[in-house]
């Protein structure tokens, strides 16, 4: 027995409980803070914006206050909502085509090494060339305006899906691949029962990026294409409002675009969570 042994530590149970309680409290606080902090930052930002405009007497054709932007959003709702629908339509169609094209190419590339060797470099080139520089050409050669817009948005959006899905198809478990061979699975069965499910989390990661990119692609394409044939989207409304020095409407349209991007991202994240929640690590709720 040494002296140190006489210092009786607090009962281990008590210690454990206190620790647990502290951790649970931290977790609750964090849960609230996750929502509260961004909302607080937003409120402060809007307030600051408003005060700067008011205190400096900034005219609305230079910087409108947040109140005026909201008023404009309500006042111009009919025009802006129509424009939103057009942009949204192109965005979603481009995303759909990006999914089909990206997954299709990924499957082709993993099924045929020759196809991959032949075409992958061009997929990369298409990806690294800024779409703004290709778009004018596209609108020269593609008569149909909708098709042109779609093509632009697709070029921007398909690559993350292609790259991620290709990676996913190739990262199927090696032992499971062996097992498939031992059970004499056909190439098609291996693709369907092993590679595609293995690629799903990768694909969904690519899809979330592509969702944002197809909106960017749609907007950029609209800027380049200007108006014509079909109804005009949000980007065109921004350009038009700019020419007329209708700055509040520019802000209102910008707000709508940003909101659309957030909604698309949230929707795709939710989809991803629903599809993976039963089995994938990324969707697991971990203790501590």
């Amino acid at each position, binding site marked *: 027995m040494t002296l140190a042994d006489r210092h009786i530590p607090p009962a281990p149970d008590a210690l454990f409980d206190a620790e647990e309680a502290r951790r649970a409290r931290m977790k609750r606080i964090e849960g609230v803070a996750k929502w509260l902090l961004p909302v607080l930052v937003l409120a402060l930002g809007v307030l600051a914006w408003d005060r700067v405009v008011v205190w400096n007497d900034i005219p609305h054709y230079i910087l409108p206050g947040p109140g005026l932007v909201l008023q404009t959003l309500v006042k111009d709702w009919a025009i802006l909502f129509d424009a939103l629908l057009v942009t949204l339509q192109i965005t979603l169609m481009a995303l759909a085509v990006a999914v089909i094209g990206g997954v299709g190419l990924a499957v082709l590339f993993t099924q045929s090494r020759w196809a991959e060797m032949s075409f992958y470099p061009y997929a990369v080139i298409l990806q690294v060339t800024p779409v703004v520089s290709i778009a004018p050409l596209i609108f020269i050669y593609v008569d149909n305006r909708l098709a042109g817009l779609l093509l632009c948005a697709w070029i921007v959006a398909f690559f993350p899906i292609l790259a991620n899905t290709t990676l996913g198809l190739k990262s199927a*478990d090696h*032992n*499971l691949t*062996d*097992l*498939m*061979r*031992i*059970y*004499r*699975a056909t190439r098609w*069965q291996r693709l369907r*029962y*092993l590679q595609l*499910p293995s690629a*799903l989390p990768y694909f969904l990661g690519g899809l979330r990026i592509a969702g944002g990119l197809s909106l960017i692609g749609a907007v950029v394409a609209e800027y380049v294409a200007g108006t014509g044939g079909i109804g005009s989207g949000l980007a065109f409304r921004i350009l038009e409002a700019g020419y007329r020095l209708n700055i509040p409407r520019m802000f209102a349209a910008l707000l709508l675009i940003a909101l659309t991007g957030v909604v698309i991202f949230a929707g795709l994240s939710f989809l991803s969570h629903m599809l993976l929640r*039963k*089995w*994938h*690590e990324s969707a*697991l709720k971990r203790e501590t």
Partner: protein
Amino acid sequence: MTDPRPILPPGQRPLVLEMQGVDKSFNGAVVALRKMNLAVHEGDFISLLGPSGCGKSTALRLISGLMPPTAGRIVWNGAVQAGDLGVVFQEPTLMPWATVAQNVWLPFRLRGQSFASVRDRIAGALALVGLENFHNAYPRELSGGMKMRVSIARALVTNPRLILMDEPFAALDEITRQKLNNDLLALKAKIGCTVIFVTHSVFESVFLSDRVVVMAARPGRVIRELAVPAPYPRDMIFRTSPEYAALCRDASDALVEAIGVAA
């Protein structure tokens, strides 16, 4: 489950497969296996025991047809079909997106058989490994030992002529491992399966098998075959018997020799 195969005494068992002077080298340089001969008979429980790198996994991969031997032949008695071979790897190797029952369904699914048509066989296999209440669980909800049981159920659900197990319990804790060893023997007694079991544990190999094949590395080869004549079922009494201790010492000596030769 389908009807169990009766286990005949050694010597009367029909041949399942034979490795005849099998060589395997990689890149023309690494000799993973040299002149391996092994006859597997119905109802055999054979352990391949040896230090790592002695070609145990290579032997299993050759038998499962995942790669061809460099020389020699692997001859099956009769034609082999897709479900004639069951495999258990060191990792459970389950599809995480599929439930336990769907994982066990895989070999049938690949033959185009619907789940409903083999529901009873899947249930039978899961009951054999003690997982009758976990049909709809996902792999991540199971412990390591339970995942391994699913893997075993999948390997035996087709009633294969031969089951290959590559260090299946090596990653498990000692208690789980002993439990699974006992259960594996009980299962073997019930369905009379034929097993080649790879391990680097002397105790495991002697407890489980009726033949221990000791291998050495560089080049990978068989250096000794030990018969374990103790009758099945084997239990704690066998585990603590002098006979078991003596056999373990023999196997251990052979293993020391294998490592000594290699070093």
